[in-house]
């Protein structure tokens, strides 16, 4: 488990316009190459898939994760639908520990 790495990745995509553009253009490639902090293979794979449900289950910080999810899925999925999907997928994990 490397929550620090997940959170650092999410924060970079959220806060740096160039990183955001590059990741949205090629999530699989960008996350495969990312070397900002250690990640487990499962964590990296979830980032390659933009899989917010799995990242939630790993204990990503909910603020960073929601901002990220909105930034990389809208407008492909409407915000309203994404809010709903996020509710469903996070509910499957309850409230995981988020301490790093």
């Amino acid at each position, binding site marked *: 488990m490397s929550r620090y790495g997940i959170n650092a990745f999410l924060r970079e995509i959220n*806060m740096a316009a160039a990183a955001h553009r590059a990741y949205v253009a090629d999530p699989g490639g960008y996350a495969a190459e990312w070397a900002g902090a250690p990640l487990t293979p499962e964590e990296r794979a979830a980032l390659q898939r933009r899989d917010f449900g799995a990242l939630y289950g790993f204990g990503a910080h*909910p603020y960073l994760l929601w901002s990220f999810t909105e930034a990389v899925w809208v407008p492909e999925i409407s915000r309203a639908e994404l809010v709903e999907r996020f509710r469903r997928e996070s509910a499957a994990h309850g409230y995981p520990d988020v301490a790093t």
Partner: protein
Amino acid sequence: MAELVGVYGSTHNPLLWRARGQDLDSTRAGFDRLRDRLARARPDVLVVVATDHLTQWFYDNMPAFLVGKAEHIPATFWNEEREFGLPYRELAGDAALARDLLGGGIERGVDFAASDAFRADHSVLLPLLYLTPELDVPVVPVFTNCMAPPLPGAARFFQVGQVLRQAIEDSPLERRVAVIASGHLATEVGGPRHFAGSPDPGFDERAVTWLAEGRVDEALAALTYDRLREAGNVSHQFLNFLVAMGVADGRPAVHAEGARSRFATSPFFEWEP
């Protein structure tokens, strides 16, 4: 000598900024009321107690409590412009008062971290956009960690408020100082209960009552990390209102309300200085 002229608590929910609708009338009224009260207090400087959202302060270097000593404070980050439509602004700081708060805290056992390059996010800017729309009153930001567990305990937040009051009153600077705590009631973002009004109206009601009636011991006993998370996964920013309660020496608030809307229940508090 510096003089404490007002103590307030405000929401900083960034979704309010571009939202419209009648369900927001009581929230707007809450901001309007605080703006009038603050204007009457005629502060020279605002001490804003707030928690950034892992924007400037992140897991690579996370202070528990920090005083922003910068003379110029850029406010909001690119993602907040994108996500909430918030403007980028530059605030004036007050490094002289910040130094007195830092030193006054350390003398009394609160070892604040300090930053000469503070950048604020919406937790500082959003309340100011409503309460001092001209952004013409300098700001000393006090960052608190309500975001990255383990958090300081509730009693520590209260104590930091008491110490801030003493440090303000001990400052030899000629300043009229108002303290604004920025926080939330029950709030969830990025979880199963997000974006559907308050996730825990019962908590909101009790929390407002603690402050309205000055029930310090009850609040400190109840506000554990787990209880706050039960109220909503990011409700911990309520702890900033304990700092304000400490600044007011635990006296009952003269005004305490939770304004309901589709986003959450927005807190507005005022204490006599």
